[in-house]
């Protein structure tokens, strides 16, 4: 039996540089930066103060069934991105079979603000103010559940909290579900809200940059925590074609691996990253020479950018120097579990529009980071095949490949 082909027909994003596909894509190609002084909480006790928060967000625009008061921030982002993606795909929700419509989402922290509230009240000795809402709002699976409840999707419903690579994991899973015929339409992506816990942790790791995020630059000083959500509408090529849907790209394969080396540091030879890319290429039946764009994990930390470059060079050889590889985290910061989902959306858009977003703030190249990072200006470039790389705590590596639907 021939495997079903799976395509991206809708894109919904909530990001620090804009909500909705069109606004986001325009701002991204212009190299706009969403990094500001943190407003979610008081950072005076920290030695860093910058973050990439979402400011222009009105959840009321996206809710028909649920009450915003009963939704954590990551769930709100996720629902908004899901609604935007369905609208972008021109899908009539009423036309779907609810049992064949599913949700697969990733996250790093779930709804950390709910546990932060718990902790504030615990310390203030007012824990009695925490009621039944804690269980209803906090556990990470509520993000996928809330999307399904709002849209009345009764099919596959899964949360894959594999930290900063979670979006790729969730999209990969939706791809498998559709190929196996277990659903007719999947919403897949990732969501995370700005979190005091996350900020504290990265600050303590010395990983947060004081001012700007400048991936691959010689003077890069770290990452910038962010927030947001990205959701894709995935459906079988046959049904997308039948309903005359706009097809951004086809998902052709993925690779997942584990370093089994260190919780927060990548393998020194990039072993796991190479294995994930190899699997993704093999499943897509292509070679490194076929890749026209790499969306880098590109956090802006000294180690990540060096090792990621090394891994690509190990696998691609000389071809590495001919593949544009940019990091949109230079503009959005690191949106955690949403990051690779938003980056997958960027790959789909790059494939569709033949345009590549830049790595901004890249002024002085690092001798160890000597690839083409599309510095500072977006580029017109034929993108038949794009690869989306993401790496996470726990040594999790995930590579996803998207390509023009009619090619290969």
């Amino acid at each position: 039996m021939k495997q079903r082909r799976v395509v991206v027909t809708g894109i919904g994003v909530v990001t620090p540089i804009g909500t909705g596909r069109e606004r986001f894509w325009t701002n991204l190609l212009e190299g706009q930066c969403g990094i500001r002084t943190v407003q979610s909480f008081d950072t005076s006790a920290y030695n860093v103060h910058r973050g990439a928060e979402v400011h222009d967000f009105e959840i009321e625009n996206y809710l028909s069934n649920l009450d915003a008061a009963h939704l954590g921030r990551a769930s709100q982002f996720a629902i908004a991105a899901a609604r935007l993606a369905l609208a972008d795909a021109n899908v009539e929700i009423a036309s779907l079979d609810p049992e064949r419509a599913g949700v697969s989402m990733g996250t790093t922290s779930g709804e950390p603000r709910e546990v932060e509230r718990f902790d504030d009240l615990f310390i203030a000795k007012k824990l009695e103010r925490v009621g039944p809402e804690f269980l209803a709002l906090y556990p990470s699976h509520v993000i996928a559940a809330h999307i399904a409840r709002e849209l009345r999707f009764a099919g596959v419903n899964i949360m894959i909290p594999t930290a900063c690579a979670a979006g790729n994991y969730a999209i990969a899973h939706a791809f498998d579900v559709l190929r196996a015929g277990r659903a007719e339409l999947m919403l897949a992506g990732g969501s995370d809200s700005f979190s005091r816990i996350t900020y504290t942790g990265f600050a303590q790791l010395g990983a947060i940059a004081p001012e700007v995020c400048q991936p691959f630059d010689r003077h890069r000083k770290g990452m910038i925590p962010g927030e947001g959500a990205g959701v894709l509408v995935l459906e079988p090529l046959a049904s997308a074609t039948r309903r005359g849907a706009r097809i951004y790209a086809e998902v052709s394969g993925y690779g997942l691996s584990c370093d089994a080396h260190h919780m927060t540091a990548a393998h020194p030879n990039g072993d796991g990253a190479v294995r994930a890319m190899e699997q993704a290429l093999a499943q897509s039946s292509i070679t490194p020479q076929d890749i026209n764009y790499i969306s880098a994990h590109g956090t802006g930390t000294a180690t990540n950018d060096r090792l990621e470059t090394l891994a690509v060079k190990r696998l691609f050889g000389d071809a590495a120097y001919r593949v544009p590889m940019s990091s949109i985290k230079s503009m959005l910061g690191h949106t955690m579990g949403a990051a690779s989902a938003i980056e997958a959306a960027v790959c789909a858009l790059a494939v569709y529009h033949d345009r590549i977003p830049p790595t901004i703030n890249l002024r002085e190249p690092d001798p160890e980071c000597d690839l083409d990072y599309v510095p500072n200006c977006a580029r017109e470039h034929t993108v038949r095949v794009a690869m989306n790389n993401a790496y996470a705590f726990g040594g999790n590596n995930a590579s996803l490949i998207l390509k023009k639907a009619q090619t290969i």
Partner: protein
Amino acid sequence: MRNRVVITGAGVVSSLGDSSAGLQFSLCSGRRAIRPVELFNTAGLGCPLGGEIPAFDAQKYLGRRNLRPLDRTSRLVTSAAQLALNDSGWSESMRNQEEIGLVLGTMFCSVHTISQFDRRALEVGPAYASPMDFSNTVINAAAGQTAIMHNLRGINSTISTGITSGLQAIAYATEVIRSGRARAVLAGGADELCFESFYGFDRAGLLCHSDERTGDFPIPFDKRRNGFALGEGAALLMLEDAKFARERGARTLAEITGHGCGYDCSQGEDEEEAVEAIGLSIRRALNDAFIEPHEIDCLSASANGSYAGDRHEAKGVFAGLNGQTRKLPVTAIKSMLGETLGASGPMQAIALLETIRDGVLPGIKCLEEIEDDFALEMIGPENREIDVEAALINSAGFDGHCCSLVLARMP
């Protein structure tokens, strides 16, 4: 053509034993793990009871390894993983040759670790929060720590779907092997007992409370049930491609022949929708296994003593099996273990492996008065001797997730 998936070993760390046989023995002896919690102070909470693992010490399973970076959940998972690797014959040197995967289901991983990290930063300043603890605040921390300790370099994924997390992880791993992406994957789940999650369940009014009629315990499917007890533990199965397992000469315990899932959009508020979602999940699992309802020889139910949940499950099973439930032997081991969340589905699977082997299905402790309209008759406090070719495991959360799995005896 999809690859067949077999179980070649199991590892369990539970309040009723740390081996499959030990767990089954406890369940069949009617032992109960539910007693006053000692891990944290339960003063002011409605329910002081839990299924805690007494004096849990990971060193017993992991020897002289450095356990300092691991929180309780990670210790539970690394221990269960060690047991499962031993049981399935994956020595350290063999693990260097094969990229073994790990798919872990967990509802919270460790909300205790997360909360402690945050409270320390609040109380003494962010500069005193530990970077090592931070790496344990991600929900995939236990899966990452386990991969590091046991050198598991294959696919590494964490699944969170509430109570069904662990069974969903097994279903996910089954697909990974069926599609040829991996040949050997450890799959299962874990959750720890901790103040923060316990408080959440207590405040949600889901935990059991003792009264004159029930005694101190949760009684699944009984008219007197008034909630569940929280438990804890870790349970992992070694899943392998059947051909690969045969070639390496592995012992096989059972085959996973089907899985299915559903989602109740009313999140338990509408009985009809809740029942339909469970029915759908079961029908999908049976279809996936290419079997008919009458071919199911027993059911391990998700029922944990929750008032609405048990009712939805009894009716959902009736719907999913096309009304063929009166002759179906049913057990509900959460009556004895409590609700172990992410570990619960995999623990049901491990107990069923023993039932397939020894032909004994544990009774449901204290079950006396089943509800009149549940259409379950082969159910009660006594163990049952049965011959199992195919068994159904059901897992259903209090807030909408459903997952079902079919296990078959090896021919």
